[in-house]
């Protein structure tokens, strides 16, 4: 885009910022509507919201309107500055994730060479926001929730990162754009036309990534930090109004971003066989969107089906099973890379 139109730096930056600002709420809205409101409802033999717009498509906008009208409540003993800042930090981490996700051969905010590294790093920023929220609320439920979240996010960062390492080894680059290109030009069992989506050679890595992402998103079966039946809503129990809306948007925005990263790393991103050049720039976002929905479907399907692990059990799952598996995956991938 930048190359074709020769825009000034400030212009491209503004466009990128606006696009990201638009994509996050839109992505969050789409995910929340399609999966939280509709798929979950149908999985539970009901229809979900049906009143606002056809099939309730405007329900989330109505909800957002309601949240915006609500009083901005601070708990009496809250640390006001930290309390106010926490949702912003969480939302910011979701925003930063989008910077490196390519939506087409040239459609990317910033094609960092260390894209994977960057994405996984900024996704951990949300832990900071969660801890801030939990501590500053002066609520015991929040505090327990935040501490659980911190422990869990750190524990699951590892399998997530290690699961991705296999892809990085196979692609030979950490740039997300590079990984998409590697999948596009890869040859699966000698068939060059279809490319090589890494979900096939890196199936174990994909499983690790999905599990890790599920935990990072604090979704069932890893939603101990929220655990609405015991901690009510964990670290966000004291938040109302637009601050809660921030958390809500961050939750689904991050889910969207993780699904996008998953789609990019394992399903070939924007690439669809037979489409190249400018056509890929036009079709890319839609292809990526479809793949995101596919990955999200799995993430949310697990969320609506499973009960949750206890905090110590989910730590055990991470340290005893996922991390060793990830290490094995890296070892095998590395060996094959060297040998083949």
């Amino acid at each position, binding site marked *: 885009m930048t190359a074709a139109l020769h825009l000034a730096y400030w212009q491209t930056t503004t466009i990128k910022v606006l696009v990201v600002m638009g994509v996050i709420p839109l992505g969050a809205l789409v995910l929340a509507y399609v999966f939280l409101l509709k*798929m979950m*409802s*149908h*999985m*539970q*033999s*009901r*229809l979900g919201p*049906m009143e606002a717009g056809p099939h309730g498509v405007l329900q989330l906008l109505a909800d957002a309107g309601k949240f915006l009208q609500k009083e901005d409540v601070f708990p009496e003993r809250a640390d006001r500055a930290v309390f106010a800042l926490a949702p912003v930090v969480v939302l910011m981490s979701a925003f930063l994730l989008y910077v490196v996700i390519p939506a087409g051969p040239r459609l990317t905010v910033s094609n960092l060479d260390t894209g994977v590294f960057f994405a996984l790093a900024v996704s951990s920023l949300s832990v900071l926001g969660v801890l801030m929220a939990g501590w500053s609320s002066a609520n015991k439920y929040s505090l327990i929730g935040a501490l659980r979240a911190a422990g869990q996010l750190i524990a699951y960062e590892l399998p997530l990162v290690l699961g991705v390492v296999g892809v990085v080894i196979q692609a030979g680059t950490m740039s997300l754009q590079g990984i998409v290109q590697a999948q596009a030009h890869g040859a699966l069992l000698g068939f060059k036309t279809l490319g090589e989506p890494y979900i096939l050679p890196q199936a174990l890595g994909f499983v690790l990534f999905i599990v890790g992402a599920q935990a990072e998103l604090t979704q069932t079966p890893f939603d101990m930090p929220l655990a609405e039946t015991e901690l009510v809503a964990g670290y966000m129990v004291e938040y109302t109004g637009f601050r809660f809306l921030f958390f809500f948007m961050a939750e689904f925005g991050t889910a969207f971003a993780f699904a996008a990263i998953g789609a990019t790393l394992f399903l070939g991103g924007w690439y669809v066989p037979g489409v190249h050049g400018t056509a890929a720039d036009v079709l890319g976002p839609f292809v990526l969107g479809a793949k995101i929905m596919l990955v999200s479907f799995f993430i949310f*399907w*697990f969320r*609506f*089906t*499973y009960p949750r692990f206890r905090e110590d059990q989910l730590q055990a799952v991470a340290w005893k099973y996922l991390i060793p598996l990830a290490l094995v995956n890296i070892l095998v991938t590395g060996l094959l890379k060297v040998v083949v």
Partner: protein
Amino acid sequence: MAELPGLIKGLGVTLRTMLRPAVTVQYPHEKETPPTRSRGVIALKEENCTVCMLCARSCPDWCIYIEGHKDKAPPRREGGKPRTIQLLDRFDIDYGLCMYCGICVEVCPFDALFWSPEYEYSEVSIAELLHDKERLGDWMKTVPEPLALEAGAEVKKGAKN
């Protein structure tokens, strides 16, 4: 035969349910009909009431208020004595207190009270849940015919619903 892991079977259950139609009813647009015997609201057939106070007395919640007065009515047969009848001045049921037990309907010896399955009479103000005898009389339109009984039931002669 090896069983599928429970994690996979669970996913199958939710997926199957998703592909089936939902069972819910979109309430204000479509309504379910409650069964005939539903205890929705009590209807009053005023002309049958003789102000005997049985319902008010057997109400466990004391939510029926009755006032009446005596009057002379023309004799039934030619040349008979004029009768003394009791006329209803006030018959209120406070649905804010009512427990919907149906004892009043059951004890009424003159078939003046009936159950109607109607349920849409919520109010903004609790005071309006006190239905007076006109409002209770209006419910009579919604009272259904009593149902036929299941096979093997004893048929009572002259039984009230």
